[in-house]
């Protein structure tokens, strides 16, 4: 190999290495907030919570069905706004293979029960008492909804309150 060729290879490899370092840094920097968050296409992390009626819900048991996973709090106005719509759509879609799981972010049984009674909610509501599920899903702020398809993959992450129409559209997206 002649000197000139060796020099070219040397220079090219150093520049490629430095370029790769730059690309990596930029990529890592711009995804660092998203790495923290749960991303579309990820497999949804499994969890187990017990609802207000004492039934255990394990996410992976819903394989084959779509899951509309909603995180909420009783004091949160946008959460309250979408609850009745969610309930209407739950009634329509529960027989078509879409499940709604509404995870409260760790309030008292009392507050959650009163809230569910007030809005006459029929879908399963569970309280994430020690914040483990919220931490796993990096929930902040409320409300946030994860659309999980029949293969347990996260199709989309929705923040802010949803209208009845958009909830229906999202139910269609995860219908098996």
């Amino acid at each position, binding site marked *: 190999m002649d000197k000139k060729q060796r020099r070219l290879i040397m220079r090219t490899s150093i520049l490629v290495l430095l370029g790769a370092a730059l690309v990596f840094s930029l990529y890592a920097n711009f995804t660092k907030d998203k790495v923290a968050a749960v991303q579309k296409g990820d497999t949804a992390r499994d969890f187990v919570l017990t609802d207000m009626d004492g039934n255990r819900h394990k996410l992976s048991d819903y394989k084959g069905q779509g899951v509309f996973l909603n995180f909420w709090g009783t004091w949160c106005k946008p959460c309250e706004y979408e609850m009745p719509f969610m309930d209407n759509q739950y009634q329509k879609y529960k027989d078509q293979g879409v499940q709604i799981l509404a995870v409260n972010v760790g309030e008292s049984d009392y507050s959650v029960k009163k809230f569910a009674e007030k809005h006459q909610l029929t879908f399963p509501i569970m309280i994430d008492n*020690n914040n483990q599920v919220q931490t796993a899903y990096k929930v902040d702020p409320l409300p946030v909804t994860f659309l999980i398809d029949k293969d347990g993959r996260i199709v989309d992450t929705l923040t802010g309150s949803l209208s009845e129409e958009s909830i229906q559209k999202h139910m269609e997206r995860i219908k098996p």
Partner: protein
Amino acid sequence: MKEVVKCECGHVNPHGTILCESCGRVLDETQKNSKMIDMRYEGSARRSQTYNKSMIDKIWNFFTSVKVGVSLIVILLIASSVGTIFPQEQYIPPTELPEVFYEAEYGFLGKLYYLLGFHNLYSSWWYLICIAMLGTSLLIASIDRVVPLYRSLKKQKIARHEGFLKKQRIFGITNTDKQASDFEEIKRSLESRRYKVKEENGNLLAEKGRFSRWGPYVNHAGLIIFLIGGMLRFLPGMYVDEVLWLREGETKEIPGTEGQYALKNNQFKVEVYDKENEEDQTFNAAIDKVGTIVKNYQADVTLYEKEGNSLPGEDATLKKIKDHAVKVNFPLKHDHYALYQVDYKLDELSEMSFNLMNKSTKETFGTMTISLDDPKTMYELKDGYSVELMSYFPDFEFDENQEPVTKSRIPNNPAFIFNMKTPDKPKGEVSFVAIQQTLEPLGENTYKMAFAGVDTRNVTALTVRKDLTLWIFFVGGGIFMIGVIQGAYWNHRRIWIQRKDGEIWLAGHTNKNWHGLKRDISMILEGTNLNEPEDQLEAKHIGEKEK
């Protein structure tokens, strides 16, 4: 274009060489007529100067330029300082929206600051690109210079070409007939001054401190290691910086540990210096002057590790690892994680007690204690007396419709709606009770809920920190300093002495501190017949002034 330059002495130099690597003959035509030669990089051919053909070479040459490097440093310096004028986004109050905050707080300049992206400067794409370009420039410019410099210092011959000697800044000729004795004398004296002396055919080369020439490159290597450390922080698992708020009695997963560890807050306390306390007597004057002085912020915690593969939400088996008192500057350390005391909140309400009381007779019918985390629907008191909790607002306020609502789930300002059921009022009487406030929305009541006390707890905030990159920063910083010291406290001095037909030629060169070199030379020449050489640069200046 020629790829190599052959010197008259027979040595083959790379293209672009100014002074022959071996004998020092001036090869560059433009330098031939100058009185002194440019000794930078030993007149070696910087790699980038050789040719300029492919795209790669063009990029390479761009980064070898000192001008480019300096420009990048200046840009980064200015940008970094502008970034400190107003607070960065992460330091503005978390409730504020940045697009509003900067304009509201700092006016037009604030708005501009926000629009130009300075509110998030240190992770902006252009700032990162500039840093990366500076790193590239450091690396490439160093490679481009250190390799040929090393080559020419290694290949230098003892006998240099006349022109090379004549054109050194320090140069002198002495006519003497005692050549041999003087020569030996000088040699001894050079050696005693810790010069490395090499001799060849009656020519001398004395050299000292060559390693100081590598200082800048060592320094650059340190900087590059530093940058690599910064880059590694992006890798998952290398760096964690989170905050954990923990109430007394609460056990929570430690964020950033992927569910591996949990922490329980047994107690949080703030201690102040006390005049009554013997130990604190020394501080009496200060206590009198400023009042309360905090002595200690302390969270007594227990660290647990999760056992088995339980899912989030499942009751995990926790294995106790250790108890620890986290104080300011005394973190809890375990498995590369450190928990630092960083903030706190005292006296958050946890329980409230009420007595059911007949308003007119003041007779009470039992006490009920409401856990603000977990209130019950019914509280049974004495026979026939009970209280139903109809509504609970942990952080109460009236909304726009004058309806009671809660602002958050934290019991900052709890309010309750009670239904008091008594034998004489079996359907119950409704009372709205908040702190310092009682309303009877459905008409005058016979009974009331009389406030009977509160229980509070403290909350601690801990910073969760893990940093596996820190040592890289120390290594990089250490190497940087070694390079600085190497280049700053030592000089590379060389003295050439040659015998030519009854004359002794002496030339000297140093990379810095010419005064030191001159002093060395005059000490060496003491007691010999040799004339002190002239500083040609000074002579030139004096000459110009006299003109």
